[in-house]
């Protein structure tokens, strides 16, 4: 068993485009759930809308990559409005039901063969990175550059730079929002929307704004992921939504840095487990498991971790001790 290789693989996960996309999605969900109290169970749907909006704009319409990214964002705004207008006047659990269904509808629309020429059906979309890679300002080099486990190609570095920059901008954005009087109203709505309504605030409008803002951030996660990899409908399944929830609750739902920490930690632990468990099986430490079963065990352990987390530390790692999101 090569423990160094396993640790290196694990560490490399920290800067992968998938992790960065995951971080963004978790920040968006923090805006929805942690600050506004909106139960968005369709995170994967928002990511898919962003990613497909980006890829289709390039492949089908031949637009430059940054225009495509703006279209991905616009698609998320439209998606949020469609979900919000009928449900935000109702009680919170209705939004949960509608979002989980809408995310599945979106995924199945991208999966159906009816739109194969545009969406690529089950094969997904690929080969839309040319324009994005051509805009890379980094000096020309071949092979992988970096230090320690973090050596990447020129194309990969460009995605990482853009992705990390987006994360920083989004964090500043959310921080500025949440310390303002706007953020105060949003947190008030999380606690009791009737009380906020009685104080003269248009609760529906505030909830809609929060749904759009969070949705755009989640879609940015989808776009950054798409910049680094292909777009495939099998990624945007409901379990993806639950992974992001796990990451958010791990870090602390009502915090600025909680989702970042939670998402990175989630991916590091997941990468570590899916490297080390098969290795342990190979050297005969876990004789009751096959290599394939050990991969499944990773998800069993993640589910278990989520349960323990919600029971014993509902405020997350960075959450305020007094601030128990689930205990009212």
């Amino acid at each position: 068993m090569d423990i160094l290789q396993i640790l290196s693989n694990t560490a490399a996960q920290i800067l992968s485009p998938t992790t960065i996309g995951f971080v963004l999605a978790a920040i968006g969900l923090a805006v929805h759930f942690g600050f506004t109290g909106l139960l968005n169970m369709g995170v994967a749907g928002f990511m898919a809308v962003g990613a497909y909006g980006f890829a289709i704009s390039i492949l089908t319409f031949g637009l430059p990559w940054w225009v495509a990214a703006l279209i991905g964002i616009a698609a998320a705004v439209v998606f949020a409005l469609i979900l919000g207008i009928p449900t935000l006047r109702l009680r919170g659990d209705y939004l949960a039901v509608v979002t989980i269904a809408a995310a599945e509808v979106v995924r199945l629309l991208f999966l159906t063969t009816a739109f194969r020429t545009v969406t690529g059906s089950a094969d997904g979309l690929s080969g839309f990175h040319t324009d994005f890679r051509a805009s890379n300002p980094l000096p020309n080099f071949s092979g992988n550059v970096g230090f320690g486990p973090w050596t990447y190609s020129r194309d990969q570095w460009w995605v990482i730079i853009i992705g990390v920059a987006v994360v920083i901008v989004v964090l500043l954005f959310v921080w500025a929002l949440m310390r303002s009087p706007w953020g105060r109203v949003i947190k008030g709505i999380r606690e009791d929307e009737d009380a906020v309504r009685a104080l003269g605030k248009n609760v529906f409008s505030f909830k809609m704004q929060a749904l759009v803002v969070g949705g755009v951030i989640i879609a940015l996660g989808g776009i950054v992921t798409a910049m680094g990899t292909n777009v495939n409908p099998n990624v945007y399944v409901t379990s993806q939504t639950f992974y992001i929830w796990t990451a958010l609750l791990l870090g602390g739902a009502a915090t600025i840095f909680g989702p970042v920490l939670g998402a990175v930690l989630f991916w590091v632990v997941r990468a570590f487990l899916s490297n080390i468990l098969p290795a342990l099986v190979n050297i005969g430490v876990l004789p009751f498991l096959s290599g394939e079963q050990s991969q499944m065990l990773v998800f069993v352990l993640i589910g278990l971790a989520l349960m323990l987390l919600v029971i014993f530390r509902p405020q997350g790692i960075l959450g305020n001790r007094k601030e128990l999101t689930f205990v009212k």
Partner: protein
Amino acid sequence: MSSEPTAAVGRAKSTGLHTGDVRPGVAKVDPILVADGVKRQFGGLTAVDVDHVEIPRHAITALIGPNGAGKTTFFNLLTGFDKPNEGEWSFNGRSLNGVPAFRVARMGLVRTFQLTKALGLLTVLDNMKLGATHQRGERFWSSFLPFLWRKQDGETEAKARDLLVRFKLDAKSADFAASLSGGQRKLLEMARALMGDPELVMLDEPMAGVNPALTESLLEHILDLKDQGMTVLFVEHDMHMVRHIADWVIVMAEGRVVAEGPPDTVMKEQAVIDAYLGAHQDVDLGVVTGRVKGEHTAAEQELLEQIEDAEGVGE
């Protein structure tokens, strides 16, 4: 506590609020809120059916009645939290029909809730600041530009701290509202309602679940509101409280206004005694239902006969 028990009684009551004979729906000299034919049905049940009622300005009006009389539903209808099946109601002469709750609040009609709605995971100070209306920093795009709202936010905070001192919550301003006691939450909710400079404050059972010492200070605060030129409408069960501080009393029973008038006279009306205490308040229900052994008094015998008659009709 700040005051002796007699202090609440010491202040002069407002009089001469009505014109003409005192009866349900009597016209007021200067009404702030007028409701006409407001009716709310839940399925087959008519929860509220108010023909006409006027709330006098610059006075403390109590809305009393037994459980299920429709007081809270009427509150919800007046403040836009619920919509009546029919009816018209207006505040300062402006119709409130179809006006959403948040806009009603902005017009100067602020309410509190029977089950206190302190925003638990916000600090006491943030709870207060949330109550201020017309905040520039609450607009989405200007929230990124602190120079647009910082000055106003400072003024809001100063006002909030003043109110917290008045309500003796200033020591708690940095704590989460969830850490307050039930009575302190009632105080916070009332103080928060004042942040929006309301003209009419509607308090839904402000004294429910509050210990006697704190009740005394709550009563003082309600009287202070009147001194500051606000109008108060409150729901209450405790007849003594009502007698002490109310200038006018409106009695509801089974969704209707059955009586109104100054507290001393209205309490003596037969309709009020019937509605509020029940026509059979001297009857021991335990004896009537046979759970407790005992001699039937004449009144109990009469009630039993009525029940038997009613059952006979039902069969």
